[in-house]
């Protein structure tokens, strides 16, 4: 019986998750290393809270604001409140920092989920790589 060459399938198992992991991991790491510290610093001072809110208003890819989970509802209400306030020229006070921290927490959860997903995809890619090596060795021994 003719031996089927599976190397192309293994190559796709290596490359596709690797590309997705690089995209997801890159975005999530950028959020964790650049955006989140910046937002945290901005919301810690009353004078820069509005700017901090604008940084947080852009959702993280895995922490979108339109999802209907229980945490999402609290974040959604905070966004509705701050959007209206800033649109009408209002100020954010230090008492309201807790709600900004809630939005920041959402972003942190999103980036953590992104990093974990990227890690999982890297494992899939690694498994594909091992299977690829085995397949090549088998091919040589026949």
């Amino acid at each position: 019986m003719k031996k089927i060459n599976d190397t192309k399938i293994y190559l796709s198992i290596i490359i596709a998750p690797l590309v997705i992991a690089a995209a997801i991991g890159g975005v999530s790491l950028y959020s964790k290393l650049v955006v989140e510290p910046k937002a945290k610093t901005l919301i810690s001072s009353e004078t820069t809270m509005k700017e901090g809110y604008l940084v947080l208003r852009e959702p993280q890819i895995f922490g979108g604001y339109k999802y209907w989970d229980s945490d999402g509802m609290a974040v959604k209400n905070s966004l509705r409140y701050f959007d209206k306030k800033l649109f009408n020229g209002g100020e954010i006070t230090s008492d309201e920092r807790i709600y900004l921290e809630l939005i920041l927490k959402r972003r942190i959860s999103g980036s953590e989920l992104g990093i974990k997903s990227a890690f999982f995809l890297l494992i899939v890619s690694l498994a594909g790589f091992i299977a690829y090596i085995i397949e090549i060795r088998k091919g040589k021994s026949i």
Partner: protein
Amino acid sequence: MLKFLKKELILSLALLLALTACARKPESPLSPSVKIGVEKKGEDKIFAVNFTCGLKNENDCTAFTNINGVIEVKNNSSEILLTVPFKIPAILPFETGIVQERIELTADEASPLLDLLAIKKEQIESGEDQGNRFIEDRNIVIKKLDLEKKDIIELLRSKLK
């Protein structure tokens, strides 16, 4: 295989762009209702229709501004009974914009609307019926809806300047 992947990636990116570019417009009015009363205007009697409904912005990052539209109330034979032009300055993400308009109708113009809502003229005139009615979804439609879509961050940033 790389060619195949390239094609898939381009398709995925195009789909992502298309999905993010299309902010959802309100498709139907929320909780539409009317309050109809009789008023005297000079020698004539007019029917004052106070129309109320909500328009929901379900987008998370897109605000609607300069909203200009027309809502139509139709009977079960699709005849137009009431036309409500309206303007709303802005509806922010997750918010519901309120349409509140007063339309004045003559007795002849109001008659088919009163029939649809099962309101008797005499009972409104005597004050026996307050003229408050909800309009069923099948009898109402957004005929025209012009609006500007703005990214919420850009909109709020312009307010900070």
